[in-house]
């Protein structure tokens, strides 16, 4: 194709980019439906509203993409690739008609369907890539194709540029958030980041250089482009699996297959677009513009994703994008500098690598040499990495499997027992063999689960809080458990584990759930009238027979507020005043979910210094509604005959270590929760408890068993036990026991011990571990971990996870 118009080529490239984005996103959507947790927790509750619109309008988007592609193919319709272009359009139109009539996007209930559509959506990228590669594009001002060569100076400049951009940004972010201990620690982070960036640059340079050298002979050069596509595809697949797929719990063979397919399709498509420009002289002016604009673009990208990220995934991808663009721009700027690699190009990598080794070896000794504990690289570099996604991603890749604490076997074991895919049958969870026939009226039971509610935003747990007067009053007449933890970071398994009163197999979900639904068994046996929030989990697991009153019916899940739910509950209680049956009221609200709070406005005139203000403002509103509900109970005479439990399914990160939301972590702020229990006076007179003993969300159901006159016996170690004794049974001795906690969404496990004073975390997604001292009031302190503690903690986690798996018949 002879094409003298650069504008045409650019329009064609834009069309191709749009097509790549559309089908790439289709594949990503299918991957999300393939991941059980991503489907259950992102797509089902409509956490991202526009995703639902994408699915609903998918056929229209498809036709738009096809029309744009048709226009972009006009220039090749008389070339040798024309038959392929016509065939693409014909098949594309047929598929378009089919998906208009019958929607094809997977619904999350069939892994095979999700995989099939994911791979099918990559076919257009390969097809159009092949058309672009087969096109002969020639410009009037250039007859010789540009041969791209790796250049050490360009790679080095890229490293310095990216390092400097993110170092400035990290310094600003960390100081603003007071997230780094000292200027020394910051300087250490910046210095080591420079070395790490240079090391990455020389590795990339050497890899590309190796490729070029191996194919530099004419006989090999024909294969150079293909080899480059293969190598880039492999690199893209590695990065996609590591940064995207593993964090969303796509493991095993499927993760490799999806990563390879996505990586190859994206690289082939992009290289096809690059081929369209291969005969065109590179514009240094454009390259300078890119270099000048990239820092701003990096900042904008980072700020737009950092509060709704998933384990820093989007931040890492944004840093890689900036680095790739910078690398292309610097190669354009230094083009023609030399005829190829020189001896200097051999020496510089050796010097840089030696520098890297020297830094790695000396850094752990700095605290001793400089008498400053804050320079411990484990902590200082982790803190720095929180603000610098570029450093974070390179560090993870360079140190992958090289850290002494990695323990590949242990982490493989955790991954194998996480987000289990194979069908597993339920196990019976029975706290009692037979239910007692209790004399006299049962108390009403109200369980309010506030999604993402942190304990330190409630005055019973934090004296600095002044905006929860109602819960403060509630706590004074109740029991506030001081060391309460959820068993799961993340709603997916946290809520079902409350109902089961036990940890569950790491699968979303083992069904039918009824044999494990200990709380439903209790209330059915005691003939309670049930009033419950409808959400995707309760609908899927609890079920809603006609006898159950549904709250929040028809309300989008992300809009379930405590105020709205309690108003409905009050109306229902008013309407059933004559009903003699006791009530089990259950509500879960999402007022505080990060999807609702990240950009929520703070009402005029309200200030919450020291707190995340949008979140605190919503806690105030929620507190007022809970206060109104307790007033309602008093006015209706129900207060003195009701057990009221206020709890959260998990906490949330609100900027600690630049983390936001709960993702797949079990950091202290995510697993420590408030647990407030009000008892009717008759029960309070008989009950004894130990509010300073470690408590878990899984204790709620066995506690209700005990309070309703049953004598629950925990069926397994992983099950909860009553928080109160009514005089006949002693509380279990658990102050010196160790308890496993886990993320609902990833292979990240924790071990709570020393009565909730210590938390060991094993992160099998990032291959890291952490130890926290939680014994000091008001602060969670990360501390060093010895090899012995690491081994012992891992052994206990392994035992309990294996025991849980064995319970379900898995070996």
């Amino acid at each position, binding site marked *: 194709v002879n094409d003298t118009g650069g504008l045409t080529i650019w329009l064609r490239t834009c069309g191709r980019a749009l097509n790549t984005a559309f089908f790439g996103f289709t594949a990503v959507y299918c991957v999300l439906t393939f991941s059980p947790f991503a489907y259950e927790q992102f797509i089902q509750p409509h956490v991202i509203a526009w995703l639902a619109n994408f699915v609903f309008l998918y056929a229209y988007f498809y036709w738009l993409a096809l029309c744009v592609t048709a226009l972009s193919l006009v220039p090749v319709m008389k070339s040798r690739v024309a038959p392929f272009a016509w065939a693409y359009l014909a098949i594309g139109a047929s598929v378009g008609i089919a998906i208009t009539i019958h929607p094809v996007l997977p619904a999350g209930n069939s892994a095979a369907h999700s995989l099939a559509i994911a791979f099918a959506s990559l076919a257009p990228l390969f097809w159009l890539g092949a058309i672009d590669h087969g096109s002969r594009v020639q410009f009037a001002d250039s007859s010789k194709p540009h041969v791209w060569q790796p250049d050490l100076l360009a790679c080095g400049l890229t490293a310095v540029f990216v390092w400097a951009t993110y170092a400035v940004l990290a310094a600003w972010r960390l100081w603003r958030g007071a997230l780094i201990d000292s200027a020394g620690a910051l300087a250490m982070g910046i210095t080591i980041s420079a070395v790490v960036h240079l090391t990455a640059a020389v590795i990339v340079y050497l890899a590309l250089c190796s490729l070029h050298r191996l194919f530099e002979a004419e006989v090999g050069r024909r294969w150079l482009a293909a080899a480059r596509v293969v190598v880039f595809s492999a690199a893209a697949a590695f990065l996609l699996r590591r940064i995207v797929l593993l964090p969303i719990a796509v493991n095993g063979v499927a993760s490799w297959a999806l990563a390879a397919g996505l990586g190859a399709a994206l690289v082939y498509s992009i290289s096809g677009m690059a081929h369209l420009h291969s005969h065109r002289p590179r514009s240094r002016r454009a390259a300078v513009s890119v270099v000048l604009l990239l820092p701003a673009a990096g900042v904008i990208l980072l700020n737009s994703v950092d509060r709704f990220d998933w384990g820093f995934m989007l931040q890492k991808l944004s840093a890689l994008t900036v680095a790739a663009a910078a690398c292309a721009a610097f190669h354009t700027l230094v083009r023609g500098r030399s005829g190829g690699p020189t001896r200097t190009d051999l020496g510089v990598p050796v010097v840089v690598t030696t520098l890297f080794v020297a830094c790695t070896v000396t850094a752990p000794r700095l605290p001793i040499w400089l008498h400053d504990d804050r320079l411990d690289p484990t902590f200082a570099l982790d803190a720095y990495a929180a603000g610098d996604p570029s450093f974070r991603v390179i560090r993870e890749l360079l140190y992958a499997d090289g850290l002494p604490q990695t323990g590949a076997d242990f982490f493989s074991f955790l991954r194998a027992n996480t987000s289990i895919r194979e069908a597993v049958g339920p196990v019976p969870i029975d706290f009692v063999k037979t239910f007692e026939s209790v004399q006299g009226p049962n108390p009403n039971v109200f369980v309010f689960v506030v999604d993402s509610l942190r304990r330190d935003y409630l005055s019973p747990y934090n004296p600095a809080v002044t905006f929860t007067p109602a819960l403060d009053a509630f706590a004074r007449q109740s029991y506030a458990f001081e060391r309460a933890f959820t068993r799961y970071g993340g709603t997916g398994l946290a809520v079902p584990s409350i109902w089961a009163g036990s940890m569950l197999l790491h699968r979303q979900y083992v069904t039918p759930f009824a044999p494990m639904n200990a709380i439903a068994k209790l209330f059915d046996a005691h003939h309670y009238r049930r009033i419950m929030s409808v959400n995707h989990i309760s609908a899927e697991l609890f079920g809603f027979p006609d006898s159950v009153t549904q709250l929040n019916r028809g309300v989008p899940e992300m809009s379930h507020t405590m105020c709205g739910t309690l108003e409905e509950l009050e109306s229902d209680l008013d309407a059933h005043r004559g009903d003699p049956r006791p009530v089990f009221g259950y509500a879960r609200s999402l007022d505080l979910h990060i999807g609702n709070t990240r950009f929520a406005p703070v009402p005029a005139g309200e200030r919450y210094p020291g707190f995340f203000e949008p979140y605190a403002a919503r806690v105030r509103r929620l507190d007022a509604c809970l206060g109104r509900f307790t007033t309602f109970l008093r006015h209706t005479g129900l207060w003195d005959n009701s057990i009221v439990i206020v709890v959260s399914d998990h906490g949330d990160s609100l900027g600690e270590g630049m983390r936001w939301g709960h993702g797949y972590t079990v950091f202290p702020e995510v697993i420590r929760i408030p647990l407030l229990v009000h008892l009717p006076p008759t029960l309070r007179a008989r009950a004894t*408890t*130990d509010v300073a003993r470690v408590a878990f969300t899984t204790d709620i159901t066995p506690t209700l068993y005990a309070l309703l006159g049953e004598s629950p016996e925990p069926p397994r170690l992983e099950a909860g036990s009553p928080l109160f004794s009514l005089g006949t049974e002693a509380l279990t001795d658990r102050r010196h026991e160790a308890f496993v906690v886990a993320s609902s969404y990833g292979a990240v496990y924790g071990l709570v011990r020393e009565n909730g004073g210590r938390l060991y975390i094993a992160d099998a997604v990032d291959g890291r571990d952490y130890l926290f001292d939680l014994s000091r009031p008001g602060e969670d302190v990360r501390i060093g971990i010895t090899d012995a*503690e690491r081994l012992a903690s891992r052994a206990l986690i392994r035992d309990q996870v294996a025991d849980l798996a064995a319970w379900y018949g898995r070996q």
Partner: protein
Amino acid sequence: MRFHLPLRRVWPLVTLLACLSMIRLAPAVARSDSGGQCDRLGVRDTAALERCLALHQDDVGLLIDLGRQMERRGDRVQAEELYRRALRFDPHDPEVHVQLGTLLLARGDRAGARTEAREALKAVPHNSAAGQLARLAGEPE
């Protein structure tokens, strides 16, 4: 396709492999033994507990575990000393108070047992084990 691979063409690959090897080895070289050899969790035999205690002298859990071991072996004097040592590190741990009080009660020291039960209940008013100890020691309701 014929390939000739003289050194001139493979030096980047050789350098790359050398650099990657150095990078992989660096963390192992840097590794310093930061902790002792105490398997603090799951340890149950006396010798191992004593070894751990030498490394973690303020670990209340270890002190209690070792105290219980001593009690089982009939060495109440040593057990009492360990419990009292634990209380120096955490004067409010009700479990230690209850453990010590139970030991005192077994020795016939009802007043001492009552004191420990009161301390435990002061720290945790609803502690059922402490309440039971108080009743056994004759503490008025």
